[in-house]
């Protein structure tokens, strides 16, 4: 007589197997500070990790599942999407099995898998909110909003978001108000390509300190970088920017979102209120000056 398997035990074993399989491509990242974080072996010799949590730029080590350590160098950081990319000499270390986060829906069951110095570090929950493209607080364009209904251990930051097929759909990070969220795979792919090619992500720059004003709705220039494009084009402190290429702007955040990497070099037509009267100004966005 065969015994009917207990569904709870089945589920439990399945989760453990998923975690173990996914964790092969997850590394620990020792990047300074007291706490190690996690990273995903994204492509051979390329690891992605959480930018904000990675303190150091040099002397970084990755720790594999078998405890072996490898020296890694920083290929670049993108604070706007919370992605840092590391390079190491590729060897037989397994690469994570990647899947597409676009299929995620609110309510889907997911795991996060990081690497603690004592082994894989897992958490489970559901997708609290699966939404469309959004902009981070620093203006980074992120393809899908994936907010997670779980608590992310600090050591698991930079680890993987894993679905029930064991595919890595993105990177688990701590977002605003300490909420766990995931940066989707397609966004990571894009940022990895740019960081590997250029070492940094270009950001558009106006060279103006802005504050919102209510009436007329717009953003008021309260300071100017004398070498910045805004000052060079003739923007004055006290000017209120009310429109950007004909579309109204009323919040500083909107202006941030209008300065993505591909805005560099483009010319924008600003609608202004200067001394109470409408005016126009055209300026060419420059790349944010270096570090």
């Amino acid at each position, binding site marked *: 007589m065969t015994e009917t398997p207990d569904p709870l035990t089945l589920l439990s074993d399945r989760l453990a197997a998923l975690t173990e399989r996914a964790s092969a491509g997850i590394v620990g990242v020792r990047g300074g500070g007291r706490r190690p974080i996690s990273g995903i072996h994204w492509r051979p010799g390329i690891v992605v990790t959480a930018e904000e949590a990675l303190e150091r730029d040099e002397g970084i080590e990755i720790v594999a599942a078998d405890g072996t350590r490898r020296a890694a160098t920083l290929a670049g950081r993108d604070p706007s999407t919370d992605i840092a990319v590391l390079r190491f000499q590729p060897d037989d270390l397994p690469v994570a099995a990647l899947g597409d986060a676009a299929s995620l829906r609110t309510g889907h069951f997911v795991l996060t898998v990081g690497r603690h110095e004592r082994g894989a570090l897992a958490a489970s929950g559901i997708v609290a909110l699966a939404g469309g493209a959004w902009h981070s607080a620093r203006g980074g364009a992120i393809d899908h909003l994936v907010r997670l209904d779980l608590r992310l251990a600090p050591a698991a930051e930079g680890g993987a978001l894993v679905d029930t097929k064991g595919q890595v759909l993105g990177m688990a990070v701590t977002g605003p108000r300490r909420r766990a969220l995931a940066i989707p795979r397609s966004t990571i792919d894009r940022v990895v390509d740019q960081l590997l090619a250029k070492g940094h*992500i270009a950001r558009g720059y106006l060279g103006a300190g802005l504050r919102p004003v209510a009436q007329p709705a717009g953003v008021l220039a309260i300071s100017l970088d004398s070498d910045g494009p805004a000052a060079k084009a003739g923007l004055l402190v006290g000017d209120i920017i009310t429109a950007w290429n004909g579309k109204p702007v009323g919040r*500083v955040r909107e202006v941030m979102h209008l300065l993505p990497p591909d805005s560099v070099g483009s010319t924008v037509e600003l609608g202004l209120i200067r001394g109470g009267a409408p005016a126009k100004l055209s300026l060419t966005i420059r790349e944010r000056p270096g570090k």
Partner: protein
Amino acid sequence: MPSFAVFAVESARRGALEAVARREGTLIDGAGDRDALRRLLERRLIDIVLAAGIDAETLASLTVRHPATRFILLAEDSEALDLVLAGGAAVLPREAGAAAIASAVVAMGSGLRLIPDLALDRLRALAGVQPVATEDEMPVLTPREHEVLAAMADGASNKVIARRLGISFHTAKFHIASILAKLDADTRTEALARAARMGLVML
């Protein structure tokens, strides 16, 4: 010593202003009506006119004709903006005393203009600007914190900030922690987003 002319219709008032003018410079003469003031300005070189109760239209005709002469006006707040636009160098409250007039003389000497608060509000309204509610108090950052914030805005890591400002790694972290606390932020990203909204970092 600047040369003064005084204008006031009432003689008691004129006398009081003449006393102030004598203290601040050389009083050339006082005038009790507009024509007397006009004649005085044609005849003599006057640096400063101290005038109570002059209307904007009269003032405009005088400032056009005598661009080198500066006018200190004692007037109602409601007239202040019109008087400034008519070329007045300083507008003081009607009841301004000797001390206020003396400070106006000093300010004008430095090339400054003086307008009362109420006129500023009207100026804002005229420019169509309404000040945004200042509920999010601007945090007061130290000059060093401003530099660290600017470096953070450029995407610099702690290490790079330390190197750029010539401070130790730990000092950089200390400044960042202080900035986060002042901006009531949990993370650098949150701090930068708030700072940008307050105009503390350039976009």
